[in-house]
């Protein structure tokens, strides 16, 4: 596995996204939006009703995150903003990718076959950000540009638009050519589990 470190300015195009590979480490500058389960659903439902979205998700990275944010005057200050467990979004992430085409997904824990297919179809990557590193992430967020559906979805569930500088390190763990760090690990773990089973049987 190669480890290329790339500093990207958003938005990026399909060709640029398709050139990213499992093992690449990314630092992003530009805009990212947060969306957990409910924001995914809210955005998909708005699209189905033919309503325009209040922001352009295709030009930003999608961040699976429910941040801690504090109101300061008319604006907002991000206190902590690490990734949430991505696999909850597996049930609609392929549809989300095909509808809105964000080129970079940021989360933790990896995703499944549906998302992998969506990444391949659309030309996008899934990246892993260290789980729980909420204070570190907040340091790389320059400002909150906007927030949508705050009343409906609450602080963790709302879609927050962050302007970020050198946001990372993000490890590409699923790419658009079918590469998956999680799948690559499976044979190693399966082999290790044979040794585990032998140890247990002998105990």
């Amino acid at each position, binding site marked *: 596995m190669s480890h290329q470190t790339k500093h990207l300015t958003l938005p990026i195009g399909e060709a640029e996204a398709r050139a990213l590979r499992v093992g690449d480490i990314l630092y992003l500058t530009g805009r990212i939006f947060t969306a957990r389960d409910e924001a995914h659903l809210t955005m998909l439902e708005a699209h189905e009703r033919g309503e325009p979205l209040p922001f352009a998700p295709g030009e930003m990275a999608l961040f699976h995150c*429910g941040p801690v944010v504090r109101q300061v005057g008319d604006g907002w200050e991000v*206190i902590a903003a690490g990734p949430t467990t991505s696999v909850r979004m597996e049930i609609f992430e392929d549809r989300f990718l095909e509808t809105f085409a964000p080129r970079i997904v940021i989360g933790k824990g990896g995703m499944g076959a549906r998302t992998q297919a969506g990444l391949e179809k659309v030309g996008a990557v899934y990246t892993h950000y260290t789980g729980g590193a909420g204070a570190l992430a907040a340091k790389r967020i320059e400002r909150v540009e906007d927030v949508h559906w705050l009343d409906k979805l609450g602080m963790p569930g709302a879609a927050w638009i962050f302007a970020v500088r050198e946001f990372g390190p993000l490890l590409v763990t699923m790419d658009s050519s079918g590469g998956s760090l999680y799948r690559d690990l499976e044979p190693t773990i399966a082999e290790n*589990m044979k*040794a*585990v089973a032998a140890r247990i049987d002998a105990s």
Partner: protein
Amino acid sequence: MSTERIVPALVEALRIASTILPEDVVEALRRARGGETSEIARAQLDAILENVGIARDGSIPMCQDTGTQTFFVEAGVRSPFLGEIRDWIAAAVVDATAAIPLRPNTVDPFTGANPGDNTGRFMPFLDWDLVDGDEIRVTVLPKGGGSENMSTVKMLPPGVGIKGIKKAVVEHIVASGGKPCPPTVVGVGIGGGADIALKLGKKAILRPLGSANPEPAAARLERELLELINMTGVGPMGVGGATTSLAVHVEYAHRHPASLPLGILVQCWADRRAHVLITPDGTAEVIS
């Protein structure tokens, strides 16, 4: 009068738990960093350790999931404050949510409504133990949702024995992969009943990291399970590596002849906790 002293002490305990990772956990993470040979596994632990430093120095929550606030109350039966402690804890949670701040994490299961202050039906949850004496010892455990989602109970057939327990725990940790934010602390509760096994597992994660159960058989199981889990190669954040868990703690109760309940409680690397000791004169000491 005591409210004025004890509520702020409880708020301070919540602040310490949310912003300062206990030194035993930091030390275990540093050791794990030293034991990793993979570049991407080391990068995960480096990010965690840098994050822990930023949180401590800036007095900000180390993780955006500040958890649901669970309190373990060891209540001395002769304490004069048994009637008040529940209200004080609830008041402290409301104050701490605004002051630290904590993410509002209590959601009505039917309406989805979030009161915004981390209170709600049965929340904050208090786990009571009546003990001898006149002091109250409160332990706060802000536990995140990602790792709690990986906690489970299995009702094993007793015939599988302790070997069956080992197999079930390791298989569950492998199936959980990166989702509970490893390296984790695993609490294993054995026996009692379904609810009791889970409760014992949760109490197990409150122990100082790597402390051994005083019963030799349970202590041996702790050591074996830690070795077995770290043989799997799941690694920090599930990206592959040598340290999947920092510690395994076992607690047990006698079981029904027909049952072998196994509670598996998974705690993320952010093994946050703090204690408050309330004495009968109304003073409260915060112990991190």
